[in-house]
């Protein structure tokens, strides 16, 4: 078998050499000096051209041979594009959410007496945030190329304005001796709060993939908690203060419950803040600016093109995607349909 291959190759070489000699002789006979000079120049230019191509690193990319069509987009350009689109898109995000956030805090009130330190009672604050309206704005994201055809994104997001509403319950539970003389109570009020200005970083990635004819940058932002600090609106503070002062009587242990002290605790609790998850649907897939087409028109004839993805790779320099194409004629214009007797 091996011998046969060698023989066949030798035969081919001999036949090729004979053919080339014949063609060269025939050319030499019939060709003008100018044509011969032009042929020489062509061969010289071709060698130079191949030498230049050999030095071009871009042409060594394996994706260029991966399919019938390869598209390459410079990664820095792509990064700028994603940054700008994200910045424009997230320039103003309005949230109207029912976040169902619960915050709890409790503490004890102690008093020094002639028999030692006595715990007079325990207070508890339950804060339920039922509604959150916020306006967020993103600045230009930072983008870097990551593994697995991804770009890592870090988006600075500012909370321009936020307002929450909910209910706060303050309860007092007397202990020890105070239990005999003080009454327990609970105050519940509807409150409104505003978020303190803050800046956050939303981190995630866009992964590139081919879906049908489209190359998409698909967002992948893991659930991440962001800390929001709030302060009650002045009207809400007034309501809380009035409710506490209403309890500031001797029979309700006024000695233990000092409204300014409790208000300070509440303020501290609000400003400690709570964790909040940004909805994942905030981010959307972005279609890349160069796409394959599944139908083309050739001289009025519709040709379906089956796009079969072959390669997709993101490097620091380029996003490459390649596809194999199979054409299938869908419709032909009347003039192009074969006729029984063709005419000039």
């Amino acid at each position, binding site marked *: 078998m091996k011998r046969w291959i060698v023989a066949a190759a030798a035969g081919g070489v001999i036949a090729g050499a004979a053919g080339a000699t014949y063609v060269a002789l025939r050319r030499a006979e019939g060709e003008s000096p100018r044509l011969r000079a032009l042929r020489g120049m062509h061969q010289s230019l071709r060698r130079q051209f191949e030498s230049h191509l050999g030095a071009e690193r871009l042409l060594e990319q394996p994706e260029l041979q991966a399919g019938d069509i390869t598209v390459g987009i410079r990664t820095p350009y792509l990064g700028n594009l994603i940054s700008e*689109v994200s910045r424009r*898109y997230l320039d103003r995000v309005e949230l109207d959410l029912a976040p169902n956030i619960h915050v709890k805090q409790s503490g004890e009130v102690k008093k020094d007496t002639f028999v030692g330190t006595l715990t007079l009672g325990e207070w508890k604050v339950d804060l339920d945030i039922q509604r959150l309206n916020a306006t967020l704005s993103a600045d*230009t994201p930072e983008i870097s190329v990551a593994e697995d055809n991804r770009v890592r994104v870090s988006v600075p997001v500012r909370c321009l304005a936020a307002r929450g509403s909910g209910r706060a319950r303050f309860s007092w539970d007397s202990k020890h001796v105070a239990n005999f003389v003080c009454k327990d109570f609970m105050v519940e009020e509807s409150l409104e709060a505003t978020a303190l200005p803050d800046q956050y970083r939303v981190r995630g990635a866009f992964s590139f993939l081919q879906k049908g004819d489209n190359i998409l940058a698909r967002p992948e932002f893991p659930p991440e908690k962001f800390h929001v600090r709030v302060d009650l609106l002045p009207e809400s503070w007034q309501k809380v203060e009035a409710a506490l002062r209403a309890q500031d009587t001797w029979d309700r242990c006024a000695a233990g419950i000092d409204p300014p002290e409790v208000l300070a605790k509440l303020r501290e609790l609000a400003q400690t803040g709570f964790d909040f998850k940004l909805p994942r649907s905030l981010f*959307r897939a972005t279609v890349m*600016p*160069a796409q394959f*087409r599944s139908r083309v028109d050739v001289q009025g004839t519709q040709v379906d093109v089956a796009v079969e993805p072959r390669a997709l790779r993101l490097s620091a320099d380029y996003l490459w995607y390649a596809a194999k194409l199979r054409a299938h004629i869908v419709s032909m214009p009347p003039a192009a349909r074969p006729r029984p007797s063709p*005419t000039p």
Partner: protein
Amino acid sequence: MRVESVHVAFEDGFALVQLRGRASLVSDAQTSAEIHLYGGIDVVDLDPETGILRGRVTIFALETQRVSLVGVPAPVRRLVDDLGREQLKVFEPLLNSIEIPVRLEQKVEVPAVNQSGIKIAAASLPVQAAVVDVKAFRGKLWICASAKAEIAKGKPR
């Protein structure tokens, strides 16, 4: 005229398109000649409306391969050759425009969101794309396009 096959070669800096077909007389379909038309994809345009890349083929040569006519082959052959030499543009409608199955988008868009309490307006970034160079070598047609987007400079706001 009927084109029966097309051969394309992208080598030596030239995108050669060779059409092989048959020309016959309207009055006598049996009087026919096998012809080869040679053209080149010399321009690739980008349609600004659709972003479709379109190549234009210019015909620059006609070659008659074989003439079959019972009795008088030579006059018909001369007729077909003369026709080809004189009016090459006549053949251009055979394949003067080829759409390349790649579309360059004129803008990058992200649709609006109004669901689950999130409201975000749609965003659009216009992209000015243009073909800057077309080369044919190593069996491929290389189309270089430039794309400019209105990208903000520096740190915003």
